């Protein structure tokens, strides 16, 4: 289990002692007295976390719209003759691939922090492949559905929610490809690994959003 650790202030804390993160994060994010030493990585990660908070509100506004529309149209959610988004093995495999990629990218980031560049590259490449697989799978899933964007509230909400999430997956994969190329430039990550860490955090965010969307759009069958 030693692999599943997150490094804060260079001191490893095992995941099962999650409560020990809290004082560390508070100390890190709410410096009380000012005059903290220049810490480009910590500052940038703070800013990126704050940005993701903002980003999640956009998703929440879409989800709020979806929930309100769906709960007020429980009887006629599916337009006549449309079977909606069915839960299939294909979608489940797609989801499993995306979610398990989170457990690949975190060791990759940890490897980068320990300057194990080769291990980082292979794990990172694996994440890129998993993300791309999800994107292609989602495209195939879209083409198999029997409704379009303008097919009632079902089509409106389904395509906007999954499309907006897909846009984030594409962004994540593009960021990952950039970070992979950066690792091929000699000495590039000696300056710091904020880019890779932010991409990792972003990827976890994309996965968490997908868990919510998957439950709302697939597990909740009309």
């Amino acid at each position: 289990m030693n692999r599943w650790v997150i490094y804060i202030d260079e001191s490893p804390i095992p995941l099962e002692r999650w409560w020990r993160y809290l004082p560390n994060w508070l100390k890190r994010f709410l410096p009380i007295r000012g005059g903290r030493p220049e810490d480009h990585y910590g500052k940038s990660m703070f800013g990126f976390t704050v940005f993701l908070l903002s980003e999640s509100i956009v998703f929440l506004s879409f989800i709020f719209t979806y929930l309100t529309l769906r709960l007020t149209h429980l009887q006629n959610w599916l337009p006549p003759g449309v079977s909606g988004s069915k839960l299939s093995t294909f979608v489940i495999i797609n989801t499993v691939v995306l979610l398990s990629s989170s457990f690949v990218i975190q060791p990759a980031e940890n490897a980068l922090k320990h300057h194990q560049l080769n291990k980082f590259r292979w794990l990172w490449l694996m994440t890129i492949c998993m993300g791309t697989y999800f994107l292609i799978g989602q495209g195939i899933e879209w083409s198999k559905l029997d409704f379009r964007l303008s097919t009632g509230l079902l089509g409106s909400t389904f395509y906007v929610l999954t499309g907006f999430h897909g846009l984030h997956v594409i962004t994540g994969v593009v960021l990952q490809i950039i970070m992979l190329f950066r690792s091929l430039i000699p000495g590039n990550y000696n300056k710091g690994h904020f880019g890779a860490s932010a991409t990792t955090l972003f990827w976890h965010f994309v996965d968490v959003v997908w868990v919510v969307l998957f439950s709302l759009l697939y597990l909740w069958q009309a």
Partner: protein
Amino acid sequence: MENIIGDRESSTSQNEPENNWRPYFSFSTDHKVIGVQYMVMSFIFFLVGGLLAMLIRAELITPQSNVVDRPLYNGLFTLHGTIMIFLWIIPFNAGISNYLVPLMIGARDIAFPLLNAISFWMIPPGGILLLSSFLLPNGTAQSGWWSYPPISLQIPPGQPINGELIWIVSLVIIGISSIMGAVNFITTIFWMRAPGMTFFRMPVFVWSVLSAQLLQLVNLPSLTGALILLLFDLNFGTQFFKPLENGDPIIYQHLFWFYSHPAVYIMALPAFGIFAEVLPAFSRNPLFGYRSLAVASLGIAVVSIFVWVHHMFTSATPSWMRILFMVTSMLVAVPTGVKAFGWTATIWKSKLHLETPMLFAMGGAAMFLLGGVTGVMLAAVPFDIHVHNTYFIVGHFHYIVFNTITMAIFAAIYFWFPKITGRMYAEGWGKLHFWLTFISANLTFFPMLPLGLQGMVRRISSYDPRYQGWNVIASLGSFLLGVSILPFIANMLGSWLYGTRAVNNPWHATGLEWTTTSPPPQDNFDEIPVVKRPPYDYGDPKYSVIESPDYHQPEH
């Protein structure tokens, strides 16, 4: 310290500050340059928005619709509101915060300078895009700055590029810029403070900026989401907000007001912060109740997240929800009242120095009383239903956005003008500007309150002749308001070019920004200061002069 008048112009032959235009037209990452860029750009949009307002008032002099045609009139009030909110007050606040926050907390720059520059350079394209919709064959967006569906979706067929689309796209651009700005400000305030600058040594202005930017961060994405959905409804055939196709326009209202009510506080909180800086400096008193005023900023921000439904009392909102949001809306008056009492107690029984910044701050704080009290009246459901969609609402929020916030902005410009330019403004012209603005603003906006109580509906170009009397007064006031901006422009340009050299701290104010030279050097501080005193220690004779050597010692 009794007389702070005589010694603000430098008698020594210091070097004349350079009047260099060039940095302000370049892609600079210096927070001071970006701050000035924000302020000047938003002021230009303020002039455009004011011109639109004067056209609206020209139309309303007579009860008939005879100056502009009705689609254009709809476009005028839509763009007037949009420009004044999204291109004047919010960017100006971003500009003054950009300039002052790093100086006030003792930082060399903002947390992410490049991101800061990018978020500035997104606004001019967004604003020009918005104005360009006047050139479209069908004109601008016509559904008001709310852009409520289904009215905003009623576009003639065969018009894929229409004013509404342009409006949505430019607002999304400006919104993304604001979110990036919020990330920058929050990170700066949490991470970049000088040694010893604890949270309770930050000036109230910094507290206000922090509260306002937290609101931008949490609430603005809701507007972005709503606008994206509206865009899909408009051009891609979805049905989120189309009532005839099972959609629900009320959802848009919720998402819109979830941002746009806190937007009022995003605009007002920095203004409250400016009052808290200017009033102590000119009454030579410590700010009354510093801690409660600082915490009240956060209190206003937190409560204001939970009040948005008071804009929707007539939107078929269930009674329990109306009562709940009536209570929360009235609750906002508590931290806001703390602020108002704090300002009053600060100037209570002190010898006031009525310079232009002080006049604007006192005028703004006084008129905030009228704006705030009408706001509490509107929070009451029965009264709100009575005056809903009338000029009472228009009068109320103009008392906030013009008579309070824009007055505070003018106070800030005059107060920090010596710091920003290194020169003094002309006091006589400033006072002329104040009295013209104060009188004409009240002439313009006060008549709207009785008009609304009598039942005159907003957003119409023709009205019942019995309302004409008040309307003529308001229109004449608005033209005078237009004239009142001329001495300001003359003063700013003339003083920037030919004004006398200002000393580093002309007002003998406390605060780290006054310890630097005027204008501040490239990296703000030669050595990062160590902060040892609370802000606003005007009363303590030992520390009343900021040049006192042990006030803020540089770090060794």
